[in-house]
């Protein structure tokens, strides 16, 4: 069986859900190994072993992480060669796609982004044009390098017990690279990140400056908060919450659209969600055309009522 190399950035003290999804997928396609640029925590090592990971590759020079993308891509390409990997899997964040892109050039290998499924022959299923087409694509040159969307894979319970072997590999730092010279962590909201969330509650122009009903409902549902471009442009919420063609694309189990008309650019970011619920005052809002459940009404009253009802039922 071919080695399927999973790129993990810096999981910290425990794996993220997206990491587990990638490991689960790798296990169905071949023998999983991991390329890890950050520190390997012992709990993470044990969990990787339980997912059947044979080898964890790490760069011998930890300075690569301060180089923007180029260093990480050089490491991933070197790890792929050291592992003789048959395929490479990464998450679907902007950075992961860029690491895949540069590693693809180094390995002369095709890159496919936004995968939602991968068949045993590495045929990739993805959607294009904002979910209007589903395509099957293959890498025809080199080792398939595939970035996989969150929430596409049902995480398997890890079964095996084992400790992966750690192999350090020498990667010369690329000379032509931008360097990260400053970094400030944003205050953690305690909510799941948009990329990983199973449930997303998003607000738009209709929230009219007050995101609290959207945030309260998201918290009651254990979901992430998103926003339309109109809402982020108005400065009501941080730009990183933006969903849509110029923001993030999400495919959660549940997407609640509150006060968003659902113009095509917004639909582009969310129409592959499994269930769509929409609340909007305007009965003609395009979002109702794709909603599984729509409420024509004022989000300022409908959302708090729903939040209270959820809290009541959850006791």
């Amino acid at each position, binding site marked *: 069986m071919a080695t399927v190399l999973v790129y993990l950035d810096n999981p910290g003290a425990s794996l993220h859900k997206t990491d587990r999804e990638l490991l689960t997928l790798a296990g169905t396609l071949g023998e999983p190994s991991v390329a890890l640029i950050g520190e390997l925590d012992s709990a993470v090592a044990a969990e990787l072993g339980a997912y059947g990971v044979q080898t964890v590759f790490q760069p011998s020079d930890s300075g690569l992480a301060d180089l*923007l*993308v*180029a260093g990480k*891509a050089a490491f991933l390409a070197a790890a792929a060669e050291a592992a003789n990997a048959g395929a490479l899997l990464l998450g679907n964040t*902007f950075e992961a*796609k*860029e690491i895949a*892109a*540069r590693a*693809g*050039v180094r390995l002369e290998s*095709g*890159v496919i982004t*936004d995968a939602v499924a991968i068949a045993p022959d590495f*045929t990739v299923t993805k*959607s*294009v*044009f*904002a979910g*209007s087409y*589903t*395509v*099957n*694509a293959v*890498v025809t*040159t*080199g080792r398939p390098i595939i970035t996989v969307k969150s929430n596409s894979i049902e995480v398997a319970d890890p079964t095996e017990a084992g400790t992966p072997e750690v192999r350090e590999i020498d990667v010369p730092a690329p000379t*032509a690279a*931008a*360097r990260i010279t*400053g*970094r*400030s*962590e*944003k205050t*953690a909201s305690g909510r799941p*990140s948009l*990329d990983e969330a199973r*449930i997303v509650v998003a607000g738009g122009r209709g929230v009219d400056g007050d995101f609290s009903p959207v945030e309260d409902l998201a918290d009651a*549902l254990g979901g992430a908060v998103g926003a339309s471009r109109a809402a982020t442009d108005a400065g009501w919420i941080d*730009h990183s919450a933006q969903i849509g063609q*110029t923001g993030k694309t999400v495919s959660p189990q549940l997407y609640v659209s509150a006060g968003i008309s659902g113009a095509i650019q917004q639909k*582009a970011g969310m129409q592959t969600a499994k*269930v769509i*619920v929409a609340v909007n005052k305007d*009965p003609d809002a395009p979002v*109702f*055309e794709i*909603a*599984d*459940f*729509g*409420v*024509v009404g004022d989000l300022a009253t409908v959302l*708090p*009522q*729903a939040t*209270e009802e*959820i809290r009541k*039922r959850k006791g």
Partner: protein
Amino acid sequence: MAETESALKIAVLVKHVPDAQFDRHLSGDNNTTDRSESILSELDEYALEAALQLIEARGGEAAGHRVTAVTMGPAGAVNAVKKALQIGAHDGVHLSDEALAGSDASGTSKALAAVVRHLGDVDLVLTGMASTDGETSLVPAQLAEMLGLPQVTFASSLELQQEDGGWRLTARRESDHVAETVESALPAVVSVTDQINEPRYPNFKGIMAAKKKTITTLSLADIGLDASEVGLAGAWTRVNDAQPRPPRSQGVIITDEGDAGIRLVDFLAEQKLL
């Protein structure tokens, strides 16, 4: 200060993409993008604006700085360059060759890298954060790797300083959890987000001035690439088949009569989403 600075040469990559306001299609046996009804990719306007602001702050064209709009694609793609010239780019390059049809990200990057090399002495390659058609965001990174240049992507601000006879850029990038300051020497490939500026519109003067600006059309032979390296022939990936997604059918729509929040929760419970 302007007289001590060397001239900046900026290439802005622009793309002619299907207008996302309308339904977009794949066409033909190879499932390539149908490019009728196309426009200048909205996200490229931010890159062009960033280029113009960088040189205007240093005396603009009069000080020897230059912004070249570059595109590749069939005949219609030149419209993206024309629009860029109306907005303020100084000249344009259109790489046009039948063999380019069906290029994937790697082929596109290969061709654009060859154009940048052909232009010579480019200090900065600026792009938008993604094309609004392929949406893969792969090209800036692949282009940087092919040119052996640093990349700074998703810049939400961008500054240049002259230092030891060369240019140095400082950019800011933001993600969910972290804000970063990034530094790089030039030449470099930089992509910018839609937060970096407010793009200007072409005005009448710009539209008239654009008629006198030069657009150079290049073929693959001009940039030293073989047809087998690009297009469908040179692609490292292939789309085997494409199915239009079945349209989402409309579900239940209710009008709030005071209990819509509760009915919404009933629906979530039915769907086992609580």
